[in-house]
């Protein structure tokens, strides 16, 4: 993902302080000793947009095209924003529709038909699963 706003999880109009807080959160989440690659990525993202001057320069001169992860993240971010705009709902506590829930229940029950019928075969399958590295 190569979009610094998405990497830090801040909106496009975030100010210096919001971005700094997001950066500190990210550092706590990805300390360099545990996840150096991610730490480097968020640090680079922070340095690209930490000031108004840098943000404008990034928008003005950035020529790196968005990668696939960035496009997906843009769409997800938009979906989350849309969801948050809806009354009494946010993306994290979204509930499925009754139809979706019925479908999921049906799928789960139907998937149970994949279990073996005979007890002997069940034992063999369990043994195989236990032997798997």
């Amino acid at each position, binding site marked *: 993902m190569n979009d610094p706003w998405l990497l830090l999880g801040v909106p496009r109009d975030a100010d210096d302080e919001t971005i700094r807080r997001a950066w500190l959160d990210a550092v706590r989440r990805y300390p360099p000793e545990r996840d150096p690659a991610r730490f480097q990525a968020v640090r680079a993202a922070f340095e690209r947009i930490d000031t108004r001057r840098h943000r404008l320069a990034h928008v003005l*001169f950035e020529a790196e095209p*968005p990668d696939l992860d960035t496009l997906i993240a843009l769409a997800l971010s938009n979906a989350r924003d849309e969801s948050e705009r809806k009354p009494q709902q946010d993306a994290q506590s979204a509930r499925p529709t009754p139809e979706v829930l019925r479908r999921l229940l049906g799928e789960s029950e139907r998937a149970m*038909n994949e279990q073996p019928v005979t007890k002997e075969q069940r034992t063999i399958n369990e043994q195989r699963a236990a032997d798997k590295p």
Partner: protein
Amino acid sequence: MGKTKAKNRARVTHPTAPSAVNADKPLERVDAALVAGRYKDAVAAGKLLLKQASSDADEAMAKERLARAYAGRAGQLAAKSMFVEALAILEQRASACGAAPPAIEQMLWTLHAGRPERAAALLREHAQALDRSGELPALRERLAARLLSGDELLEWLDPDEPLRRDHPAAEALLQAFCASDDFAFDATAKRIPWRSPYRGFRQLLDAWRRHADEPEAAVEAFARLAPSSPFGALAGRLQGLLEPPGEALPEAVARLRALDPVDLDAAAAVLGWPATVLALLRAARTLGDAANEKSRLRLLLEHADAFDADEVRDAARALMLHAPQMTREVFSRFGKPSAFQAARLEALRSERDGDESIVVDDAWRDVLEALENSDESAESPPKFADRALTRALVHRRLAELWSLPPLVLHSSAVALEELGRSLELDPDDVPTTVRLISMHRDADDLKSAREVLDAAIERFPDEPRILLEAVRTALAGGAFKKASRLAERLLEIDPVNVPVKTLLLDAALAHARKQIRASRFDLARRQLDETAVQVGAGEPRARVEIVYGLLELASGERGAETVARSRLRAGFDALGGELAGLFAVALESVRLGRDAKMTLTRAKLPSARGFATKEAVRVLVRALSAVREEKSSLAAALVPLETTLGTVAKKRWSHAEYENICETLLRRELLHVLEPFAERASRRHTQVPAFVYLHEYAAVRGAFFALEEAAIVRLQAASRHAMLIEDMRTVHRIEEFLSPPMFGGFDDTGADWFDEPADDLFVGPSGKSSPFAGLPSPDELPPALLELLDLIGVEGMMEIERAVARGEEPDTVIERLLGELDIDPETRLGDLPKGSGRARERGGKRGRSGRR
């Protein structure tokens, strides 16, 4: 081929299958097939076994095996949702083996096969037996899930059957959950008894609704549901689909991209994504990570509805730069960009395509012009509403452009001008201020450096970076005491400032040198004694020892030469000895205006010839990389080492080692030292175009006009090779080397305006067999040409080139341009007053660039 594939598939599916089974022994075959899960084979072998049974015991044993084989086969078919076929197998099993069908499977498969009335009858028939065996609750849970998923079984169930009795409450619970009505949920949940088949469902929904606020408790609650129940199975699935609270987008993207298509659909449904997002995710999954810019742009255009309108437009434009063939589609979808945006995109494209610097320069100037005239608020959001800052940033970009090596012809002057304009528009930018000061200083324009510095200190009185520049500028001007004072002030503000400590040492040593040069040896000794106390041990102390040694050598006092040798030897040893140690002594000697070779001889230090090793050169290169010094001083300090370096250059170095050495020497502009290394590197690593460039560049000391035709051919071939292996730095370097901005590209087709010099304007030194033989040296341009440049600017020169490309005569174009400037074309340019700068005075676009 088909058979081989089938064999492989069988091997993969049943890894434990014995490789060979005796066809004459059906018992062994059936047992092996049963263990391996090859039930179709087991049925065939079981039938054979039953046929061959010669006693009741054998028949019973064969029927038992066959019954297991049938059951396994029926299970396989049911797993593929072939329920009718599975039931048929159960019937065959009953007739062939006399085995009653397994009640639970028979009931569920009958239900799945679309016969709810028969399933209800089977439930009634087997309920008591299943209750006794303890299997009834599990069956009822599965049936509960079927009922909640909308199965028609409900109406066929007895009224007192718990599945029917508790169904209204379970259905109300489902509705309350989906409507996020927690009050109704709690009330309804109480109506579901402890032993109800819907109890697992209640637990599932209760855990789910707690997931947003109490994720850990929810996970524990999910885990309490038996995975063998449909509700437990769904709980397990949900844990992979639900977003952990506070999950960052990168994690969410990674998690979602790992989901298979079925779970992706489920996640979309669970999380309530719009259909547009799900469609995008499905398409992205198909596209994969290898998708190029064109594919990504197509994806974006096809799924634009999944994005925010401004973001999708900006992303499409960014991708369009890399997929120009889709420009029309992007414009048609999102409208044509504003003049400013169009100019910005063109400038980025120009940079990306590696256009010549002058073309990129033009493109960014168009951005500035468009910014002046356009109403950027027409595009939302108006990111560039702060026009002053936007313009400042573009000027900064131009400064960067003209600071890129190896641009020649006053490029640093343009960079300075652009940085100055940038600071006028954005005076609070400390890094740019620092850069401008250091560039003035590097250009030996201390007066301008001090002007900028004074204004900066007034604006940022306690800014360490500015104070550091003040120290450096004071040192550059020989104001050592002032530098020390400034350094001390800086250390008060920033006590751990390492660069200033180094500068402080530099200042002290520079002051000591000044005293030595003035033969004030006592003052120099006092300075060095004080410095020695301050710096402690290590490299700084070694530097003090070397200067002290040189002081003693210069003093000529009785016994001083012995002391000098002792101190110089101490400094030499402390710096690691060998070539790096010799270089350090030689460089200090040059700083004092002494001959390096003579100094090393007098110091009786070991000869450089004794250190002709690769390791010694590695250390020396590191030292060269670290030292800040004029190239002339470096070159003078390296004189005693040159023969040795030439010898070591012939040793076998790796590609990376040659690259490191050559790039360091190029950066330090030590082209005469670079030449033997680059020459050897280009011979030894013939497949590396960068070495060809370095060799040719060093051989002519960077003067493109001195290149012979054969060298140009080699460089052109190297450029093509570099292009093939995507070594764009070398491509760019060769292009800039062969075609400095004002002279056009080496691969231009057709005649350039300078190919046929007009009159005496373009008469230069002759004698070289080169396409540039008729051209003047960049550093020795004829005064007339310089004046023409001064009058019409680079823009004017470019205009001449464009006009010639259109077929006009150079003389005609020059006359026209001079006419526009009200200069009589008949007037010899040499007769004009010097530095008339008419184009600048005119203030128009043409004169804007000034002379580069």
